[in-house]
């Protein structure tokens, strides 16, 4: 009995707003054999034709092709369709295409209904064609029920603030900022570190040309600082982001440097006088030291000092030494509120840290180091002035081994290939052989991955230089009393087992998503991919877009990549972002909430439900700011009278789908 009552209530809950004469056209896509090889598309189309409201039902080889879309437009005219349903792939990639198609055919784009019979049917029921066909028919039936209730909607145009925010000033972010600025728009470039440059600034040389990293990066850093359209905010972090495409509001926190950046000349007198010396983890990977007041590295931009208050003893020596009176220990953090139209995220990565798990003895044995530590040891302006020494006794190593794929291509660590480790090991091995021709260099690898222009040739060159390659992942690493390392490794090409004695072992560590990237990702609500990096909107066709309009991701924040690829993505982000700036307007989603004023009792329960402050109560009346509404529909659920409804996902539309998922047997 109770059940009957509920059903009666439900009837009231479903308001009938069916079009007076729904005329639905159904297009079932075979997608070549992607769907057609499993689902009997003809049977699905024939079944659809029997359902109420369907006046035309057909099968296409590829509905999304030009021919398929033309057929939809023709059918709209020929059968006087007022609803179109396509049963094909996922709306995530193709809904916008078909909405545009029906609009060209003369219908409101929201009178289009999408049914996914590929990702959600043929591909996951490949072994059971009968069930797949039946399920596809039922999914189409559900879609048709919903299509009958669809209503036309209008998207709204919003003005776009003609400024951009770029978060992260590594090589990708610098490129994005320069490109946007050179197109004539103002850019705020926010960097958490005291200098721009990112990881590239730490590298010695770059593959496959072995040109000096800072020699090509340094001028670019200066270019960034001199560009009048770029407002550089170093030692700063984005704290808060609100708004939507065209109208983002960001709060940036400027950490105190305790040095007046406008008067400091970067002369370094203060650094000389500072009595406190601590290991330099920020730039030199813990090799070498820096003072409590320091300039991050010789080519830093801006070339300004910064005080590490966690180790400073307030002795005042730096203040006395500073001729421009730039030291100010009273400095406090400050905040900027930015208004921007678009956001580019290039927050980069961390190198994989083998310490906690002691991979290959790292952290246990002094002479096991990472690739990034080696970069600093080889760098002419590094802590050893480019002299390669091993940590245990500061003696030049004669026998050097590299282990590839540390932290990468390993189900216990990270499954993915980090892409650049093969190449940097080949580069560092070459540099060592060039500097120390009598050294022995071994690279222990699983596969050498050298896919782009001149990369394979670079690998050939390493072989020609006498670098020895052992194909195999080492099993055991031990250390003797002289801190020499023995690596036990099987060469899987010859089946020889070696006990390789080495003076220095370098782990070619990969890239992992950084903590600071993760913080920014959560702030912006960008999706996270399985590998922990930020996820693009489409892996092939939208590689730097996110699912959020106006927010773009580039460089290693999107996944491991080398310098040219990072630079390309920086430019790509700039191009994608400036589309909005150049047009000066963006259209927002037509799906928002609407209130039925006759039913609304003014209780205000919906107001705090909205995370975007789109709802407010004025004199007991609900106001909706459409530009702020993102159409999630959370408020509609909270409405006790049903006065608030989410367009395109109205209760009657959802419940029609629910109801038609089931059918009386024999019906």
């Amino acid at each position: 009995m109770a059940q009957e009552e509920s059903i009666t209530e439900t009837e009231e809950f479903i308001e009938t707003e069916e079009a007076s004469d729904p005329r639905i056209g159904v297009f079932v896509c075979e997608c070549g054999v992607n769907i057609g090889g499993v689902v009997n598309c003809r049977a699905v189309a024939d079944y659809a034709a029997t359902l109420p409201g369907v006046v035309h039902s057909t099968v296409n080889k590829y509905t999304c092709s030009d021919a398929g879309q033309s057929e939809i437009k023709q059918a709209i005219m020929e059968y006087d369709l007022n609803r179109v349903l396509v049963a094909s792939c996922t709306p995530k990639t193709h809904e916008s295409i078909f909405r545009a198609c029906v609009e060209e055919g003369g219908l409101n784009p929201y009178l289009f209904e999408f049914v996914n019979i590929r990702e959600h049917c043929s591909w996951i029921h490949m072994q059971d064609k009968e069930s797949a066909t039946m399920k596809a028919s039922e999914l189409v039936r559900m879609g048709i029920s919903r299509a009958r209730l669809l209503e036309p909607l209008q998207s709204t145009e919003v003005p776009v603030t003609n400024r951009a925010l770029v978060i992260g000033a590594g090589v990708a972010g610098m490129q994005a900022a320069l490109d946007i600025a050179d197109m004539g728009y103002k850019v705020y470039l926010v960097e958490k570190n005291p200098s721009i440059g990112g990881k590239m600034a730490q590298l010695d040389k770059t593959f496959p040309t072995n040109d000096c990293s800072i020699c090509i990066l340094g001028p670019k850093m200066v270019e960034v600082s001199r560009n009048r359209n770029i407002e550089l905010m170093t030692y700063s972090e984005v704290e808060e982001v609100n708004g939507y495409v065209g109208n983002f509001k960001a709060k940036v926190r400027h950490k105190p440097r305790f040095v007046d950046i406008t008067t400091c000349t970067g002369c370094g007198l203060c650094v000389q006088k500072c009595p406190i010396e601590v290991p330099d983890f920020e730039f030199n990977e813990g090799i070498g030291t820096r003072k409590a007041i320091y300039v991050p590295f010789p080519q830093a931009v801006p070339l300004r000092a910064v005080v590490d208050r966690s180790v400073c003893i307030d002795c005042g020596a730096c203040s006395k030494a500073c001729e421009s009176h730039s030291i100010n220990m009273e400095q406090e953090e400050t905040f900027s509120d930015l208004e921007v139209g678009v956001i580019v995220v290039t927050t980069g990565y961390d190198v994989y840290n083998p310490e906690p798990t002691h991979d290959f003895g790292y952290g246990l044995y002094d002479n096991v180091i990472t690739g990034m530590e080696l970069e600093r040891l080889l760098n002419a302006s590094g802590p050893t002035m480019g002299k390669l020494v091993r940590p245990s006794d500061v003696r030049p190593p004669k026998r050097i081994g590299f282990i590839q794929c540390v932290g990468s291509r390993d189900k216990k660590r990270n499954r993915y290939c980090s892409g650049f480790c093969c190449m940097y090991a080949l580069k560092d091995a070459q540099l060592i052989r060039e500097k120390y021709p009598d050294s022995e260099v071994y690279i222990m690898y699983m596969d050498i991955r050298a896919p782009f222009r001149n990369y394979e040739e670079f690998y050939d060159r390493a072989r020609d230089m006498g670098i020895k390659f052992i194909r195999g992942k080492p099993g055991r690493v031990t250390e003797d009393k002289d801190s020499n390392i023995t690596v036990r490794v099987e060469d899987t090409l010859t089946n020889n087992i070696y006990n390789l004695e080495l003076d220095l072992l370098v782990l070619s560590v990969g890239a992992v998503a950084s903590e600071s990237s993760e913080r920014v990702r959560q702030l912006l609500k960008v999706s996270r991919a399985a590998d922990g990096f930020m996820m693009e909107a489409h892996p092939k066709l939208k590689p730097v877009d996110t699912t959020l309009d106006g927010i773009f991701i580039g460089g290693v924040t999107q996944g491991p990549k080398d310098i040219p690829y990072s630079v390309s993505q920086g430019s790509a982000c700039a191009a994608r972002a400036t589309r909005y700036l150049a047009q000066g307007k963006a259209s927002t989603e037509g799906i928002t909430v609407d209130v039925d004023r006759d039913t609304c009792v003014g209780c205000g329960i919906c107001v705090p439900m909205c995370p975007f402050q789109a709802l407010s109560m004025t004199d007991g009346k609900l106001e909706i700011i459409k530009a702020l509404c993102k159409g999630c529909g959370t408020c509609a659920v909270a409405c006790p009278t049903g006065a608030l409804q989410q367009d395109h996902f109205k209760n009657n539309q959802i419940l029609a789908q629910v109801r038609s998922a089931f059918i009386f047997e024999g019906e």
Partner: protein
Amino acid sequence: MTDNEWEPKIVAFCCNWCSYGGADTAGMGRFQQPSSLRIIRVMCSGRIDPMHVLNAFLEGADAVLVTGCHIGDCHYVNGNYKAEVRYRFLEEMVRELGLEPERLQLNWISASEGEKFANFVRDVTAQVKQLGPSPLKPEGVN
């Protein structure tokens, strides 16, 4: 029809940004699943009305799945948190209606977790097969 052949019918409410994408990723990865699921896409898990869920049971669902983005990842800031609050209420309701708790399940699945989505469908389908058709399923409904 033997119990073994009986395929339950499960309604899954999926949010546009994460769990629907997870189902897509399962498809792209060709993770084979029972054909029990009927996905209804909503923009946010926060849009899933308890009435939608109860209706699905009254219409004949053998189980209902509420899915969305992981907490902290909601495209609309915190819609999934609100979905969870409503889900806790629904858990009580389901017990009141005399349904086994396995028939209503909540899961956070990101767009990249195709394998997780497929495993979830497999697990829930197996659990519901053990239970048999929902006692609320109207007679004659398939």
